[in-house]
């Protein structure tokens, strides 16, 4: 089987990456858990997991189908082995799938969502529903791809989950009716959606570029450990499928707009919060890591240095070519990008939008300002839940507005952070 790096491609001008034909990004457990939770809060405990399962199966099929072709894998056993090892290499845990003709069982050990949920919330909250819907969707897609079954025709249910105190996760697979197929958002669709816009250099470009290259070199060697997990910088990291995040986000937005439009502002705020909690913890963890100190150097109490560093990190994690346009200490931050990982999906599957749609960029920009302005880096605070609550429970110190968006027909996406 080819290594992940051999199956990797990148659109350098957009800083977007693909594994096989699937757009991929690195995301931490804070983001993964909060985004799933928001979908369930909006759609309820039954419909939410259904939407998430459909998205996971859809995005995973696109990934696995392209990986099988790239590897020339022919037999079901060969294909299933590639599916299982890819899942672990991406940091999602260990899956062992026994399926034939769309029926069967799968066992999950150390699955990312269940394990991370247990560690983050398990001591204070009792979970009532399984946490590993992404693994369920991936398992169903693997069964389809391995056996050459119609796309999106296998159902998988998580019967036992470590987040509900089971010793391991267990899934049952059954054949189902084929779901409605949607156009894939791969390399070609991304190029078609974005056109040939050339990026314009922004402030601190050499610094940002150097950080991106350094961090990208480090990430290139990162794989799941013996449990299929990636633990770095104080978080669990996954290489994840952008189309999963995008589908659950925009399907939820569509449903809330049609059934409870008054709730859309709250929903968008919570989607922003998933980006905020992610960037605060992951970027903060990277900035304070020994790896950072070794490769880049000590952090000084310089907010502009933190902002530039965060943009370099964002590019290395495949979030897009985030560019610094303006930074006024204590007052204002302007970031733009030729595209986010969100836009190609939206444009391909939904067309143009009536509202700015880059929720992750919005929340991330807010968090970058918080990291730059409110964290005393030389004191090296522990980025704990208590610290996060202490900083953000008292209300907003900053607000963010997305002033341009590719989904609105603009030539770039732009966010402005300022005082409320």
């Amino acid at each position, binding site marked *: 089987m080819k290594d992940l790096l051999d199956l990797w491609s990148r659109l350098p001008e957009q800083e977007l990456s693909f594994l096989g034909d699937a757009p991929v990004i690195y995301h931490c457990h804070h983001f993964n858990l909060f985004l799933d939770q*928001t979908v369930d*809060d909006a759609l309820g405990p039954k419909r939410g997991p259904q939407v998430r399962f459909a998205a996971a199966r859809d995005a995973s099929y696109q990934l696995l189908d392209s990986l099988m072709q790239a590897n020339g894998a022919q037999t079901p056993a060969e294909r299933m082995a590639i599916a299982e090892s890819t899942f672990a290499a991406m940091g999602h845990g260990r899956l062992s799938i026994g399926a034939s003709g769309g029926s069967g069982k799968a066992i999950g050990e150390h699955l990312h969502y269940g394990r991370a949920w247990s560690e983050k919330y398990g001591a204070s909250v009792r979970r*009532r529903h399984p946490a590993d819907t992404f693994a369920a969707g991936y398992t169903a897609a693997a069964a389809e791809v391995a056996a050459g079954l119609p796309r999106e025709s296998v159902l998988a249910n998580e019967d036992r989950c470590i987040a509900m105190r089971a010793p391991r996760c267990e899934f049952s697979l059954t054949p189902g009716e084929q779901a409605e197929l949607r156009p894939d958002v791969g390399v070609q669709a991304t190029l078609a959606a974005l056109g040939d816009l050339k990026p314009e250099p922004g402030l601190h470009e050499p610094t940002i570029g150097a950080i991106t290259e350094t961090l990208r070199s480090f990430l290139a060697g990162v794989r799941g450990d013996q449990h299929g997990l990636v633990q770095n910088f104080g978080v669990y990291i996954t290489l994840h499928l952008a189309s999963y995040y995008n589908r659950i986000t925009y399907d939820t937005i569509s449903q809330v707009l049609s059934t409870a439009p008054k709730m859309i502002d*709250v929903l968008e705020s*919570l989607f922003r919060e998933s980006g905020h909690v992610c960037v605060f913890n992951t970027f903060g963890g990277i900035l304070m890591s020994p790896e950072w100190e070794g490769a880049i150097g000590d952090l000084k109490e310089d907010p502009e240095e933190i902002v530039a560093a965060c943009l370099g990190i964002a590019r290395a994690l495949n979030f897009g070519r985030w560019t610094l346009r303006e930074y006024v200490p204590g007052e204002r931050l302007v970031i733009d990008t030729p595209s986010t990982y969100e836009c190609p999906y939206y444009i391909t599957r939904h067309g143009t939008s009536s509202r700015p749609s880059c929720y992750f960029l919005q929340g991330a920009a807010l968090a970058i300002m918080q990291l730059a302005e409110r964290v005393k880096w030389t004191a090296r605070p522990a980025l704990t839940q208590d610290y996060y*609550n202490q900083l953000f429970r008292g209300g907003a110190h900053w607000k963010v507005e997305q002033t341009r968006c590719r989904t609105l027909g603009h030539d770039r996406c732009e966010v402005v952070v300022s005082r409320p």
Partner: protein
Amino acid sequence: MSLTNMNKVVEGIAGLRGVFVTLMPDCLLFDSWIRGTSDWIAEDIAAYFGDLVRSNREGLKSIESWAADMQVTIESADTLVVLRELEGGLVASMIFDREIPMGMVRLNVKRLLARLKVALPSIQLEERPRAERLLEFLERYAPDPHAVRMRVALQTGISLDVLTRPESLSEAQADDIEESVKSILGLDSLTY
């Protein structure tokens, strides 16, 4: 400023680290005394121990073993905590150094309670709206308290603006909020 003369109440009580008087059922701090300098947050301590006493009361009632003079004793690594319901909807939480012998603690608790009975004013209890108590309970225990009202809004369909004025909510809306709080905390029932 202390509502009661707490310095006089605790005078001569050996090994005492703190006293917290909680006003029930809302678990609000009524008065407190803390020895020396400390990072303790009196409002939080009053709220958590108030909740604990309430849960203890409900648990004992469920096994038909509750009595008004029940007392909860907690032995932690470096403290000994005694919780006691007082008349008039109050709860006293008394925290002692761990090395104080239990017999001495019991004696000191008795003295403290006698002094508190004299010192505390009689209170006319006015119950706050159920929705308000529910939201405060949730914010005390939810893992992401800064985002939790937005989660309730999304789950219930009650706007954030309305949630900031819980006294205006109907009983049906309070029921929805209670379901949301149970869902967020993963609880089958609430004592708040």
